[in-house]
C-alpha cells in the first residue's frame, strides 16, 4: 500500500509554490480543500444575499421591492447556489482536508483530477450567475426545474443546463477521487471497520454521487433537447409526460438530500465523542444505519410527488418506504445521545453546534416523517411547512455540521485557536435567529401559505414578519462568522497538536498546522 509522498523531481521538503499560481495549479489535498471551503463560503454569502432579498420582499404583504419574475429567479438560484455551490463543495472541502489525514495517506489518490474537480466550479457558477445579466434573466422555474415551466426560460436557460452539467462533472470526479482514496490510500492496518465515521459516511456519499449525478445530467439533457431539438419527452402530445421529468429528477433528488446530510452525520459522530470524552456509541450500527439510509434513499423518490396523481399502489409503496427511512435515522440520533450519556462533557463551540445539529436536525426529521404520510402530505405539500422542513435539515442540519467542523478543525488547519468567546456568541446568535426564521414557517404552511410566492394574504403577515426578522439576524450572524474565520486565519492563540483533550484520530497526531505533505511515513494503526 502506498505510504510516502513524493514527486518525480525528488525534492523532498519542498513547500507550496508561491503566489497565485500555487492555488491554480496545486495538487495538494489541503490546498484544494482550502479552495473548496473558501469557495463554499463565498457561495453561502451569494446565496444568502438572495435569501435576504426573498425575506425582504416577504417582510410584509404587498409587493414592495421586486417584481414577481425576479422573485422567482431569486428562489431558484438561491437554492441551486446553496445546494451545489455551498453545502456540497463545503463537504468536498472537508473531505479533501481530512480524508487523507484520517486514513493515514499521503494525499488524495488522483491529485491532478482533484484540482480539476475544484477548478470547474468557479466557471460553472460564473455561468449560472451570469444568467442574471442575460435577456430573460436567470432561471425562474424553481431549483427542481420542472417542465413545461422551465422551458419558458429566457436566454439563460441553456447556460443553466450546462452549468449543471459542469457541476455534475466536478462532483463525479470528486466522488471518484474519494472512493479511490479510501480504497487505496489507507495506512497499513487501517481496516475498513477502523475508519473514522466521517470517512465511512463520505465513502457512501461518494457512491450516491456517482449513482445520481449522471441521472441529473440525463434529466437536464432531455430538458435541453425538448426545448431546442423538438423532442417530446415531457410533453403529452408527443407521448411523453411532464411527470416523467419529476421521476427522473427525484431519483436524483432524494439521494441528493442524503448526499447533503451523510457527511454531516460523519462530522457529528466525530465531534460528540471528543467533547463527551467517550467513544462513539454503536460504531458498527452507525455504519449499517448509514448504508441502509443510502439504500433506502433510492426507493423513496416519489414522496416528493404525492400530489401528481400517482396510482394508489405507487403512493402506498413510496409512503411505506419513506416512513422506513425514519428507522435508521432514529438509530443515529439514539447513538449520539448514548454517546453523550455518562460522558464528561464540555461545551466548546464545535460541541454546541453539534448539539444544535442533533436537536434541530431531529426536528426536521420529525416534519419529514409527517410529510411521509401521503394523505397528510396532500395538505403539506408545496407549502411553507415543506420549506420549514428542508431548512431544518439543511440549515440547522447540514450547514450547522459544516460550522461545527470548521470550529473543530480550524485550529488544526491554521495552527491558531479561534476565539472561544466569539464562537459561542456566533452559536447563540445563529441558533436563536434560525429558529425565529424557520419555526414560524411550520405554522405558515399549516395555515395555508403556499411556497414560492412573492406576496401573500394578510392573515400570514405576522409570522412572515417574524421570519424575516429572524432571517436578517441569521444573515448578519454569518457575516460575523466570516469575521471569526478571518481573524483565526490571521492569528490567535497557538493551537496544540492535540487541540481537544478528548479528541482521537490520526489528524491529532500531526502538528498544527500539519506539514505540507501529511504523512510522509505511514502512521501505525493500533
Amino acid at each position, binding site marked *: 500500500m502506498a505510504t510516502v509522498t513524493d514527486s518525480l523531481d525528488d525534492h523532498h521538503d519542498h513547500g507550496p509554490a508561491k503566489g497565485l499560481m500555487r492555488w491554480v495549479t496545486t495538487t495538494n489535498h489541503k490546498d484544494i480543500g482550502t479552495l473548496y471551503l473558501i469557495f463554499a463560503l463565498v457561495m453561502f454569502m451569494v446565496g444568502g444575499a438572495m435569501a435576504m432579498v426573498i425575506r425582504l420582499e416577504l417582510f410584509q404583504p404587498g409587493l414592495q421591492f421586486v417584481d414577481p*419574475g425576479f422573485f422567482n429567479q431569486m428562489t431558484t438560484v438561491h437554492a441551486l447556489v446553496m445546494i451545489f455551490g455551498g453545502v456540497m463543495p463545503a463537504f468536498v472541502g472537508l473531505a479533501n482536508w481530512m480524508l487523507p489525514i484520517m486514513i493515514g495517506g499521503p494525499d488524495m489518490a488522483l491529485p491532478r483530477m482533484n484540482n480539476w474537480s475544484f477548478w470547474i466550479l468557479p466557471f460553472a457558477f460564473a455561468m449560472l450567475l451570469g444568467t442574471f445579466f442575460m*435577456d430573460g434573466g436567470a432561471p425562474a422555474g424553481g431549483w427542481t426545474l420542472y417542465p413545461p415551466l422551465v422551458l419558458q426560460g429566457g436566454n439563460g436557460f441553456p447556460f443553466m443546463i450546462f452549468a449543471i452539467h459542469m457541476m455534475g462533472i466536478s462532483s463525479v470526479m470528486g466522488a471518484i477521487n474519494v472512493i479511490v482514496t479510501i480504497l487505496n490510500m489507507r495506512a497499513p492496518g487501517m481496516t475498513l471497520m477502523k475508519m473514522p465515521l466521517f470517512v465511512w459516511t463520505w465513502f457512501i456519499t461518494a457512491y450516491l454521487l456517482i449513482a445520481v449525478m449522471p441521472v441529473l445530467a440525463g434529466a437536464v439533457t432531455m430538458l435541453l433537447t425538448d426545448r431546442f431539438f423538438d423532442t417530446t419527452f415531457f410533453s403529452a402530445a408527443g407521448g411523453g409526460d411532464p411527470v416523467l421529468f419529476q421521476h427522473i429528477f427525484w431519483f436524483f433528488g432524494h439521494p441528493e438530500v442524503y448526499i447533503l446530510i451523510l457527511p454531516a452525520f460523519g462530522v457529528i459522530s466525530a465531534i460528540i465523542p471528543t467533547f463527551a470524552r467517550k467513544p462513539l456509541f454503536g460504531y458498527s450500527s452507525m455504519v449499517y444505519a448509514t448504508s441502509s439510509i443510502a439504500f433506502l434513499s433510492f426507493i423513496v423518490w416519489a414522496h416528493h410527488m404525492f400530489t401528481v396523481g400517482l396510482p*394508489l399502489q405507487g403512493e402506498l409503496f413510496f409512503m411505506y418506504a419513506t416512513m422506513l427511512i425514519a428507522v435508521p435515522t432514529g438509530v443515529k440520533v439514539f447513538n449520539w445521545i448514548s454517546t453523550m450519556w455518562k460522558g464528561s462533557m464540555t461545551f466548546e463551540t464545535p460541541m454546541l453546534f453539534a448539539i444544535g445539529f442533533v436537536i434541530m436536525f431531529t426536528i426536521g426529521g*420529525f416534519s419529514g416523517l409527517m410529510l411521509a404520510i401521503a394523505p*397528510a402530505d*396532500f395538505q403539506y405539500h408545496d407549502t411553507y411547512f415543506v420549506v420549514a422542513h428542508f431548512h431544518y435539515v439543511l440549515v440547522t442540519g447540514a450547514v450547522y455540521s459544516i460550522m461545527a467542523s470548521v470550529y473543530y478543525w480550524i485550529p488544526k488547519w491554521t495552527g491558531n485557536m479561534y476565539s472561544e468567546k466569539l464562537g459561542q456568541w456566533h452559536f447563540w446568535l445563529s441558533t436563536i435567529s434560525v429558529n425565529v426564521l424557520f419555526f414560524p414557517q411550520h405554522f405558515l404552511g399549516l395555515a395555508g401559505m403556499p411556497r414560492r410566492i412573492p406576496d401573500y394574504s394578510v392573515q400570514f*403577515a405576522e409570522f412572515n414578519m417574524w421570519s424575516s426578522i429572524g432571517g436578517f439576524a441569521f444573515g448578519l450572524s454569518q457575516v460575523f462568522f466570516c469575521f471569526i474565520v478571518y481573524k483565526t486565519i490571521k492569528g490567535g492563540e497557538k493551537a496544540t497538536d492535540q487541540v481537544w483533550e478528548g479528541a482521537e484520530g490520526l489528524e491529532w497526531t500531526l502538528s498544527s498546522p500539519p506539514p505540507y505533505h501529511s504523512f510522509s511515513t505511514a502512521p501505525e494503526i493500533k
Partner: protein
Amino acid sequence: MNKLKQLCAGGAALTFMSSIARADYGLNLPVGVTETSRQVYDLHMLILWVCVVIGVIVFGAMIYSMIYHRKSRGAVASQFHESMTAELVWTVIPFIILIVMAIPATTVLIDMHDSSEPDLQIKVTGYQWKWRYEYIGEDVDFFSTLDAASNEARRVGSDIDPATVDNYLLNVDKPLVIPVGKKVGFLLTASDVIHSWWVPDFGWKKDAIPGFINEAWVKVDEPGVYRGQCAELCGRDHGFMPIVVEVKSEADYATWLAEQKAGSTAEKTAVIEEIDPLELKNIGKKVYTANCVACHLQKGEGVAGIYPAITGSAIVTGDINQHVDLVMNGKPGTAMAAFKDQLSDTELAAIITYQRNSLGNKVGDAMQPIDIAALR
C-alpha cells in the same frame, strides 16, 4: 429610502392590526369541511403527537445528560460503547410505531382515491394565471381570475395597503359554485404548465398537469365560501391565482346553474353589434390589465428575452390578421397562451384594438367582434 419608511410604518401597523384580526389566525391545519379533511386532520394530529412524545423523551434524555454528565460537575466518562440490546430496542420500537401509523394512513389514502360515482363533475383547467371551470354535461364554462381590487393593490408601488383590500389575494372575479352534500368530482388538467388546485378546507391538493387529467373529489358538509391558491410554481404570477369555492344549498345551486345556462345561451344568440373603436379601446384597457400585464407589463415594455414588448412590436404594428392570429392561438412552447378560449369576441376585438392604438402604438385600425366571430 421612501420604501424603507413605508416598510417600517407598514410593519408597525401590521403588528397592531394582526392582533385585532387574530380571530381568524391559523396556527394549525384547518379541520376543514369534508369527511376527508377531518380524517387528514386526525392523521396530522396523530403523527404530530407521536413526534412530540418521541421528541420529549429523546430531547429529555439529552438535556438530562447535558446537565448531569458535564465535566464541570465532575462527571467522569464511562467507556461503554456498544449494546446490541439497545440497538435492537430502538430499531424495533420505532418500527412498530410506524406500522401503527401506516394503518390509518393507508385507509384514508384508499378512501381519497375513490372518485367513483360523482353526483356532478367539473373539469378544472389551470392557465397562466387563472382557472377555468367547465361543468360537464351542463353548458356552463367560465374563467376565474384574481379580483380587480387585489390585482390593483398587488402591483409594485401601488401604494395600496393590502390590509384594506377585501380578502387580499384570496378573492376572484367569479368563484366556482358547487352544491352542498353532493359528491363533486374534479377533473384536473392544465393548458400550459403544471398548476395545483388546493383548497385547504377540502383536505387535499392535486396537480393540474397539461395533457393529463387527474381526478379528485369533495363532498362538502356546510355551505360557505372556501378559499385556496395555486400550489405549484407556475411562473411569474403563481402567487396570484387564487381559488374561491362557493358551496350553496342544493336549491340555491340549482338557481345559480339555471342563471348561468341562461346567460350562456343569451351570449350565443346575441346579435354581434358594431362597437365604436374608442369604446373598444376602453374595454381593451381593462382586458389588458387583467390578462396581459403580468407578462407584457403595464406600459407594454415587456421583459427582454422572455416577454416581448407590445410597444413597437412588429406583429402589433404590422398586419392585423397576424396579430389576431397570435392572440387567438398563442405561441406554443412559450408563455403566450391561446386566448380564443379565454376571451369573448368583444374582448378579443377590444384587446387587439387597444394594443394597436395604445401603449405607444398608433396604427389607427380597429378590429370588430364580428370579424373575430368569423375566425372562430
